[in-house]
């Protein structure tokens, strides 16, 4: 999946590419926040036994693996982008980049707040431990995915304030 995304980014040459550097960063971020955690939550969903009864290490290890993979994907992706598109990387954010970032963050912020209200305000009355941690992580990931997905969508489809 990551290589597919990287290939997409290589389609246009530098001089003719209309893909903004920030959009490329958003693609890398989206990959980093979806791929590793899809496997983690899939494993969580299909494993045998309730979460509350599992030893802590049995949960911490896969989660650490997912988080580490996410950081690795993000780090390698950003490094590759910086090496491949160094001239674009050096440019400061312009008004279009800032406008798109503002709109993406405002959408993601709403999701994050809603998630924190559910996780922090409602769930403690009926759940505990990992049964709260996992939804909290899921909401944070959802906010990040929405943030970067909205960024990509606005770069692709257009942004008119």
């Amino acid at each position: 999946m990551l290589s597919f995304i990287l290939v997409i980014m290589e389609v246009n040459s530098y001089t003719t590419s209309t893909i903004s550097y920030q959009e490329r960063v958003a693609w890398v971020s989206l990959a980093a926040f979806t791929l590793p955690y899809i496997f983690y939550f899939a494993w969580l969903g299909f494993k045998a036994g309730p979460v509350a009864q599992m030893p802590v290490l049995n949960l911490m290890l896969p989660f650490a693996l997912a988080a580490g993979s996410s950081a690795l994907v993000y780090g390698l992706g950003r490094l590759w982008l910086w090496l491949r598109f160094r001239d674009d990387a050096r440019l400061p954010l312009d008004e279009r980049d800032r406008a798109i970032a503002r709109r993406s963050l405002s959408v993601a912020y709403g999701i994050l707040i809603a998630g924190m209200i559910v996780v922090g305000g409602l769930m403690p009355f009926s759940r505990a431990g990992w049964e709260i941690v996992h939804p909290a992580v899921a909401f944070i990931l959802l906010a990040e995915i929405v943030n970067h997905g909205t960024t990509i969508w606005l770069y692709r489809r257009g942004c008119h304030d």
Partner: protein
Amino acid sequence: MTEAAFTNSIRTLRFLNGEMTQAELGQRIGVTRQTIAAIEAGKYSPSLEAAFRIAEVFGKRVDEVFQRPTKKSRNPSRIRSP
């Protein structure tokens, strides 16, 4: 694609001004080449400041660079009462 409120003649003006590239125009007004491409394609509406800067680069008024599409009358034979 989200509809732009304005059309523009930036691409034409660039070619008429020594075949200026998108990168050159972007550098002169303080935006990236990709933003200029997005403006030309109607995918981004520039700020007022950027629009004025673009116009100044070409020595034109803002309304000569950016145009608002006029709505065609749906029933041209309809007579409005005074």
